[in-house]
């Protein structure tokens, strides 16, 4: 290597790092080598691709009609057609700058939910709310396969959950689930939301559970299960934890910091800054 550099005609401009083998111990971008002191082309472009995917995940709109068709095609999902809703943030630019608007429903959506509640006489235990959040990609990739794992557990057993018509929300933040749960008069809301994309995780979906959802609830009232994606928390495991939290919430009639996930493995936080925010 050194010899090559001393001979300009055969010099290799990229100097590899001898410790690049340490990459087996971390996903950090170590041992990249260098051209002079700069990042070599190959790694520079790999970074740009990861950032491009993360940015696309933030800005590409949720394909609502395709998602709804896929939801309708599922036989074990609620009979009523999914309700398509929109937050008070009209577009992505406003959404990114006004988190408060992403937590509220627009007036048409509030009316749709009110009409839905009035048209049904039965009680609902659970509002399932699918929200684009900061990554529609995460929802398109993960919402269906996750629900495939979750629904059998919800609908079986001695005391099956009575699930309200599914809601699909565009330009929404986590707390919009509370507004929806309140209008549907559901006892519990479970929000599936696209999380803020990381450089190596543009497809990460989060779950947020609120018992007795009403407008004004804070993160302290919610339980969160984060990083649901094929390379992160698996659907089966996420579903197992969600079912545990749901059944505990129903017994204790609460959620948030007073409701601890005691399934084995990592303890899941009850409060704090939500990744979906």
């Amino acid at each position, binding site marked *: *290597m050194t010899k090559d550099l001393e001979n300009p005609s055969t010099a290799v401009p990229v100097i590899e790092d001898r410790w690049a*083998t*340490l990459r087996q111990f971390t*996903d950090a971008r*170590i041992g990249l080598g260098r051209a002079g*002191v700069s990042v070599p082309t190959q790694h520079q472009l790999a*970074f740009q691709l990861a950032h491009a995917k993360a940015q696309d*995940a933030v800005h590409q709109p949720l394909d609502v009609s395709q998602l709804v068709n896929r939801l309708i095609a599922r036989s074990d999902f609620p009979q009523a057609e999914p309700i398509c809703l929109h937050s008070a943030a009209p577009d992505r630019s406003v959404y990114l700058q*006004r988190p408060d608007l992403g937590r509220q429903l627009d007036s048409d959506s509030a009316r749709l939910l009110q009409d839905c509640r009035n048209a049904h006489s039965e009680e609902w235990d659970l509002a399932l709310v699918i929200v684009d959040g900061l990554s529609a990609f995460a929802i398109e990739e993960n919402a269906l396969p996750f629900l495939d794992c979750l629904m059998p557990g919800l609908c079986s057993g001695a005391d099956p959950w009575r699930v309200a018509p599914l809601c699909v929300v565009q330009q929404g933040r986590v707390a919009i689930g509370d507004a929806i749960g309140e209008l549907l008069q559901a006892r519990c809301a479970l929000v599936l939301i696209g999380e803020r994309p990381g450089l190596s995780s543009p497809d990460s979906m989060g779950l947020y559970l609120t018992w007795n959802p009403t407008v004004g609830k804070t993160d302290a009232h919610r339980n969160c299960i984060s990083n649901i994606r094929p390379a992160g928390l698996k659907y089966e495991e996420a579903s197992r934890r969600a079912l545990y939290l749901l059944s505990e919430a129903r017994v204790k009639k609460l959620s948030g910091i007073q409701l601890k996930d005691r399934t084995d493995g990592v303890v899941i936080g009850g409060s704090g800054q939500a990744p979906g925010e």
Partner: protein
Amino acid sequence: MTQKATYPFSHTVGGRTFGFQHLADLMAKATPARSGDRLAGIAAENAEERVVAQMTLADIPLKTFLQQPLVPYENDEVTRLILDEHDAGAFAPISHLTVGDFRNWLLSDLATTETLQQVQKGITPEMAAAVSKIMRNQDLILAAKKCRVTTAFRNTIGLPGHLSTRLQPNHPTDDATGIAASILDGLMYANGDAVIGINPATDNVAQVCRLLNMVADVISHYEIPTQSCVLTHVTNTLEAINQGTPVDLVFQSIAGTQAANASFGIDLALLAEAQSAALSLKRGTVGNNVMYFETGQGSALSANAHHGVDQQTCEARAYAVARKFSPLLVNTVVGFIGPEYLFNGKEIIRAGLEDHFCGKLLGIPMGCDVCYTNHADADQNDMDNLLTLLCVAGCTFVMGIPGSDDIMLNYQTTSFHDALYARRVLGLKPAPEFDAWLKRMDILRDNDQFQLNHEMSPRFRDSLKRLMGPA
């Protein structure tokens, strides 16, 4: 826009009179545009109102900020700190100036490194914030470059012509081998003289102690003239000190109002207790600056604790908190908080330069986490711009992370390579004690040209073998 009679601050331009309700209103409307002030509903309504507010602000005497606190004295210990510790003697040479005159003075040849140091304790954060609002980016760079703030613990930070780096070896599960791999990578790229500082993924005392012991071992084994820090809550660090753990620096996030600090679970008394506990360990060899603070525009608003004050002024007030505890390092985590506070690269760059200028003017060792999240309208080119501008301005330190990618906090900051870029284009050296160590360890082969050795340092080759295990 309204008649002069109804508002305490007003300005007439071309026959139109613009009025401002109070000093905080004037400050907010004079602030260069950013999303956080719009979110708070306190920004100027349009570009013209903003410039007229700046003209109005330029006519305000600096003394006004001593007479009209933006956050009430009775309700806020940060305001009390600012006013009670204001040095009237130091203020005397600039006490006759308006905000507009103050800008001229800062840019003039009257403001030398020495005179800036003399007036430092006479400048309040509000004065610094006010003048920054009417300064262009080049003004912020020029004035900051004249300020000198030097601190020390195991090395000397902030000397002219120097730039330090925090080695940030974060790992999503705090895996010891993963962290060690990133530390090795950083040291081989000549980073880590400001601090080797880990953000723990699991924030409890046992984990904090484990990480502190690990980094202390690395520093003592290789005799590195640097310091360690685990960026956990101050109460965790106090507990670690009580358990006899080797703590070099006490970390804490701070903000510019008492209520925002309360949302972080801290007050001034707690910071004083922590500083005194760290000092009692006497672990510094060339100095006694034992505190490391992080700040960032928007923190007071996100805690709903901003009292109607714009986010940049709240941020400058946090520097009064920092100044009280003689920190080794302070950095503004400028692009981390997200686009609802700083929307794009332009706003992030502006905020980074403002924060650096205000910090230096107030006499704190200001560094910057030159960074962005994936939902902000910013990219690597914006970071290159801000890094270069800050280094021209004499920024004390920046972050260094493998390949710009923090795999624990999920954001992008400056890389080990980036720091070497800045050294090469601007000739900026690391802290002198660390620079000598790099030579001793055969990491740099030419310290003046910032050339790394092609071959791995022999001492570290052995460590690499141990990390890889018996192959």
